[in-house]
């Protein structure tokens, strides 16, 4: 049908680059780094898609977006159709197009990847979502063909991050009433308080959450489940519950000096900047304005914290990581952006102590050099200390981005719920049901810290589990 969209005369192996803000300029602002495709670039990129009979890319997507379908519509110039195709399974395309690790998911499985030129699926997804938003294509394509009859069932969702939102959208489509409980003052979870403005503009998150509201979700903020109401109380109000509270308990290194002023978790730093809009001059949230910053860890959160510090005016920002660049868990794109922005990297470096002055403020990070040894149980080379290699990095602020575990609030206030030794909620893998009848859980609260899209995948799995449970319960 859309034969014209197929590349004619051989395969186009030129993956289109996405324009970005120049590094020298962007370190002084909080505007988005990646600028997105122009219509011309998007069309050219979309036409590279081979529209394979067996689209491997789809199997690589945790929410199974109909990738060839949306690209086919896009290549044919039907932007609204492309958006509708994505939104069948993914309600946050503008977010996912920006923050998903496509290089490990859909794009890794693209048949053109064997020739080093996978279709830029993420960039196309982003383009479709942004174009439609700009042209105010809303609602019409979102509403199901025939409105589903209300089921008369209500589901309470604890947490308004990616898992909770994905679950909400699927349940709403099936006619269930949904109430989302959010502890902070704005819905979005990590999309709002974690990922910085220059990587994921908050207006985009708000726009996509707005669509879920339009679909009928009720979102109640300033509501901390466990305190404002217990899980058991909520269970009485709803026919089923979904716990999507994320992984919000920051880890510390447990080395001397951790209580000095100037040592903080990446969660604290990024929350102050993002949720409390410290990047906005009008807001009066206090955020430290240090000169020299060390960020400990090399995942995406570490890159976010380092690049934020740079934008807030820090002169020297270093990433301190005990393994080498090859093992850094951050996305390559994030590492590269950080390097371009002048973030320094101290690889094979392990902090052993925070040093402070007599006022209790941090002045330096004492570190040891490491070398890579035998692989650990996960196959990553184990860092081993180099003897007599201690040295100090002078810093005003040390930001810990070494990971986090699930927030213990639900488990502490719901003694009957089953948790693992790691503090994650235990669920049945197929349905995501917990040991409590009618209570489901998913996302980082179950897996420990993972990605936005995996959490969304879990939200969809749970929605299916909940729907099945609700139909049995009648």
């Amino acid at each position, binding site marked *: 049908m859309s034969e014209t969209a197929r590349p004619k005369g051989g395969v186009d192996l030129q993956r289109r680059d996405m324009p970005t803000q120049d590094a020298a300029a962007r370190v002084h602002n909080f505007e988005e780094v990646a600028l997105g495709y122009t219509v011309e670039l998007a069309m050219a990129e979309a036409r590279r898609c081979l529209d394979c009979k067996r689209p491997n890319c789809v199997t690589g997507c945790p929410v199974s977006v109909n990738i060839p379908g949306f690209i086919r519509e896009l290549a044919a110039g039907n932007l609204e159709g492309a958006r509708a195709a994505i939104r069948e399974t993914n309600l946050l395309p503008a977010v996912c197009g920006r923050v998903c690790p496509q290089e490990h998911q859909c794009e890794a499985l693209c048949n053109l990847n064997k020739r080093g030129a996978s279709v830029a699926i993420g960039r196309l997804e982003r383009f479709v979502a942004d174009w439609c938003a700009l042209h105010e294509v809303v609602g019409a394509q979102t509403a199901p063909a025939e409105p589903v009859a209300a089921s008369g069932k209500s589901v309470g969702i604890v947490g308004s991050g990616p898992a909770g939102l994905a679950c909400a959208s699927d349940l709403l489509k099936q006619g269930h009433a949904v109430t989302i409980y959010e502890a902070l003052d704005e819905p979005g979870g990590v999309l709002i*308080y974690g990922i910085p403005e220059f990587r994921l503009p908050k207006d985009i998150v708000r726009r996509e959450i707005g669509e879920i509201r339009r679909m009928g979700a009720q979102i109640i903020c300033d509501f901390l489940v466990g305190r404002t109401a217990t899980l058991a109380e909520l269970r009485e109000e709803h026919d089923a519950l979904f716990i999507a509270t994320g992984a919000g308990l920051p880890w510390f290194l447990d080395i001397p000096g951790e209580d000095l002023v100037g040592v903080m978790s990446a969660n604290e730093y990024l929350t102050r900047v993002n949720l409390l809009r410290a990047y906005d001059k009008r807001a009066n949230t206090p955020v430290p304005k240090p000169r020299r910053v060390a960020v400990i860890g090399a995942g995406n959160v570490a890159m976010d914290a380092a690049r934020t510090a740079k934008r807030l005016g820090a002169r020297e920002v270093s990433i301190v990581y005990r393994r080498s660049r090859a093992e850094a868990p951050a996305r390559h794109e994030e590492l590269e952006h950080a390097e371009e922005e002048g973030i320094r990297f101290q690889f094979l470096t392990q902090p052993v102590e925070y040093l402070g002055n007599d006022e209790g403020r941090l002045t330096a990070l004492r570190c040891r050099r490491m070398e890579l040894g035998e692989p650990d149980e996960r196959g990553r080379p184990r860092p081993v200390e180099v003897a007599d290699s201690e040295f100090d990095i002078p810093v005003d602020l040390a930001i810990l981005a070494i990971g986090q575990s699930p*927030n213990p609030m639900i488990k502490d206030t719901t003694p009957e719920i089953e948790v693992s030794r790691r503090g994650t909620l235990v669920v049945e893998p197929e349905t995501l049901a917990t040991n409590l009848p009618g209570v489901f859980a998913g996302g980082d609260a179950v897996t420990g810290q993972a990605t936005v899209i995996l959490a969304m995948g879990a939200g969809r799995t749970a929605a299916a589990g909940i729907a099945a449970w609700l139909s049995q319960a009648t």
Partner: protein
Amino acid sequence: MYRIVERRQLVPDTHLLVVEAPHVARKVQAGQFIILRPHDEGERIPLSVADWDRDAGTVTSVFLEAGASTMQLAKLQPGDTLPTYMGPLGTVAEVERVGTVVCCGGCYGIGALLPIVRAHKEAGNEVICILEAHSSWLLYWVDRHREVADQVHVVTSDGSAGDKGLSFDILQQRFDAGQPIDAIHAIGCTFMMERNSLAALAKQTPIRITLNPVMVDGTGMCGGCRCVVNGERKFACVDGPEFDGREVDWTALVERRKSYRAQEIASLQQYESRGFLGSSAAVETLGERDE
């Protein structure tokens, strides 16, 4: 949006705030706190809960005006709204039937102490209140405490009302006189809570204190409120704010708070008495020294 029902100055720089927040009023208990924002661009302010009315759906706090955010809060009038009012947060005060309980309150803590006094009375304890202030003109709610407690001692640093001294002095006198004290509650500035804790430790008497560190989210997410209790790292917003005063590492806590001191704050005493509110100006100065 949460409507302010009442906001008025109790004594200079100390204000009463009553807010319509049924979700909090329904559930709140003695020892808990809330987090609010004075306006859309404002920072998050944690305040101890001093009273509530479950039927009317209102929650009362007493706060000290000390810094940009609480000054904004102090300007608001009945009918104005707050964009954020989250809670109840933190653990509930540990109250059991033990016999005789001494409850010490100072500064904003005179207000926050009231629900704890009530809870102890309801549990069947004999309650002795010690209310401390620098001077008579800083005292409030003495009558409200008298309505509930069995005895109320007033103590001022300048002797202008009640005895001259600190709550610690009264506590010590009772200990010295061999009068029975089965448990203590103290809420107020860090200095007061530390001294009373050391006195309690010496007499091996349980003491519950309410910590007031820097907070951001109040849900255990950021670790900004961390403190050391019994050799372990605790997050005051979820593991506390109430802890056993004998187990708190006061040196670390005082060090950490002291170094947050902002330039414009004249004395430690004044700074300390800022209670829950002491974070903001201080963080701004972080890193802006040595040049």
